[in-house]
């Protein structure tokens, strides 16, 4: 009797046997994500020398290492901002139904399939000093020296845009179509012109979606690794944090330092995400009229 009573009490709060279905998923995340992460944090506090915080000290006292954070942010933030900012007007124009929408969406999403290597090769071939791009510009006389767009900041930046844009675009398109189109029509009947409808209705409703999209694109860009090596200048202007982490762990065999850098990377990224999500909470975040 008291057994059923307890069962009922738990059931009232939503606890019953069905929750067991969560267990495999939770187990995987705990074993494969939380534990390794904790292990990595633990490892980062056991450097060969320098005490508990030695690895962190080593990272922060060495300008060459420390600066990788600024380098990475310098790449990831503008790239994420551009991806989001460029997606908004395009997605906005692609609301509603029109013929060829699916095709155009597919085309815009194609870069997802390119992969780092093809993007890198493509950038090197196409934007390289004698690639078609420079050739075209030179043959129409815009420039007379090839502009250098690869093996430096720009190469990595372009590859981040090419791989990040489709994600941002898809998400924003999706958020936009979640906004009830009658809201804009309502605004129109109230005398709002095109720009006012966008800026006063659509944009504020989209803002939380923009923040989420920005975070996800930023995460993608922040962890840039292969393209920083392949199209960048991995010793110089594109020495990003992940290169430092990889170098420490797999070239210098300093696992504590590698873990410490990974932890620092996670922290920096979470800080950015937290700031953005904090800003997001300033906006209206409820239903946007679509049946979400």
């Amino acid at each position, binding site marked *: 009797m008291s057994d059923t009573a307890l069962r009922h009490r738990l059931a009232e709060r939503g606890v019953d046997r069905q929750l067991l279905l969560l267990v495999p998923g939770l187990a995987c995340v705990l074993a494969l994500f939380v534990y390794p992460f904790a292990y990595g944090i633990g490892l980062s506090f056991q450097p060969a020398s320098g005490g508990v915080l030695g690895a962190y000290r080593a990272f922060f006292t060495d300008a060459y290492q420390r600066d990788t954070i600024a380098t990475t942010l310098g790449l990831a933030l503008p790239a994420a901002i551009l991806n989001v900012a460029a997606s908004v007007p395009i997605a906005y124009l692609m609301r509603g139904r029109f013929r060829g929408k699916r095709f155009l969406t597919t085309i815009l999403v194609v870069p997802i399939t390119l992969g780092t290597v093809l993007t890198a090769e493509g950038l090197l071939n196409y934007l390289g000093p004698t690639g078609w791009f420079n050739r075209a510009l030179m043959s129409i006389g815009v420039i007379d020296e090839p502009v250098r767009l690869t093996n430096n900041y720009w190469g990595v930046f372009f590859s981040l845009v090419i791989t990040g844009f489709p994600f941002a675009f898809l998400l924003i398109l999706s958020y936009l179509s979640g906004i009830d189109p*009658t*809201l804009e*029509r*309502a*605004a*129109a*009947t*109230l*005398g709002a012109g095109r720009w*006012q409808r966008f800026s006063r209705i659509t944009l504020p409703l989209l803002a939380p979606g923009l923040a989420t999209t920005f975070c996800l694109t930023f995460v993608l860009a922040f962890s840039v690794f292969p393209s920083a090596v392949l199209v960048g200048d991995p010793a110089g202007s594109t020495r990003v944090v992940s290169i430092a982490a990889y170098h420490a762990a797999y070239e210098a065999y300093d696992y504590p330092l590698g873990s410490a850098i990974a932890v620092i990377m996670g922290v920096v990224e979470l800080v950015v995400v937290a700031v953005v999500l904090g800003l997001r909470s300033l906006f209206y975040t409820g239903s946007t009229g679509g049946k979400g």
Partner: protein
Amino acid sequence: MSDFAELRLDGVRRRFGGRDALTGLSLTIRRGEFIALLGPSGCGKSTALNCLAGLLPLSEGSIWQDETRLDTVPPERRGFGMVFQNYALFPHLSVRRNVSFGLQMRRLPRDEVRRRTDEAIKLVRLEEHAAKLPGQLSGGQQQRVAIARAIVLEPALVLMDEPLSNLDAKLRLEMRTEIRRLHQSLGLTTVYVTHDQEEALSLADRLVVLRDGRVEQIGTPQELHNRPANRHVADFMGYRNLLPMKVKAVHGATVTVDGAGLTLDGTAVGDVAPGDDVVAGIRPEDLLAGEHGVPVTVEVVEYQGREFAVEARTGEGVALHLRALERPAVGERITVTAAPSRVLVFAS
């Protein structure tokens, strides 16, 4: 664009991908009128309203406001107010800012915006809720915000697209009175879309009945209620008994029809000749239990507060809906008649 004496729709037509959603709608709306567009789902009511609002371009025809052509003017410059079916309140703006939105778009001075907003909010009795977001309001309150937002601009014309369809029965009744009150007290001109005949009858000065994008009948509520132009309008106007029959004889306006074991006298609507297939329409409340008449067996009895709704079946198996003041027993046999003036005979 502001005040006007009349608004004219002239052969308005709208196609969607080759299919007509609305054809040849011609209608003159006089200042101060309350017009209801009535019809079943998909008949083109919203299409008509959106054309009027400028939210949909016309495929053919024109719209005139007195002598100005209106159908080329974008919606934001027509100066009409609109109340949407799901209200379309801006979810991120407070009630006050929803209501003042239109005034701000007009760049009115701050003071005036404040004054008129307050007035409108008061009119719909939402003073206490002015600072809330729409998501925190009940359906009826949201409804009132939508109305306040539309009328605060003192629009020449207010358009309403099934504004009550999302409310529950009791609230619907209340809001209906509210809408009629506002229309009267503010001297608005209103076009109102609904699929509920009761609502249309109770609110409108004139009704436009649509079916499949075409106008079936335009008239006052009384006209429609008593003299529907055809069986479809009748169906919509509560003629629940629609019996396919054959004309036996015609004597002036009175015709005798029979079919399915019944013989009835009725009033012809339109031209009918003996031998024609017709539909006889009778409201349940016009079928009276009496001494003489058709014998039927009671099948279903429903209590309706004052009277009982009865479904009965004739010997030939035709179902009839009628009303009774006393509860008949299920299975009981009674006889029913109808006054010839209450039986409408439509050419089918």
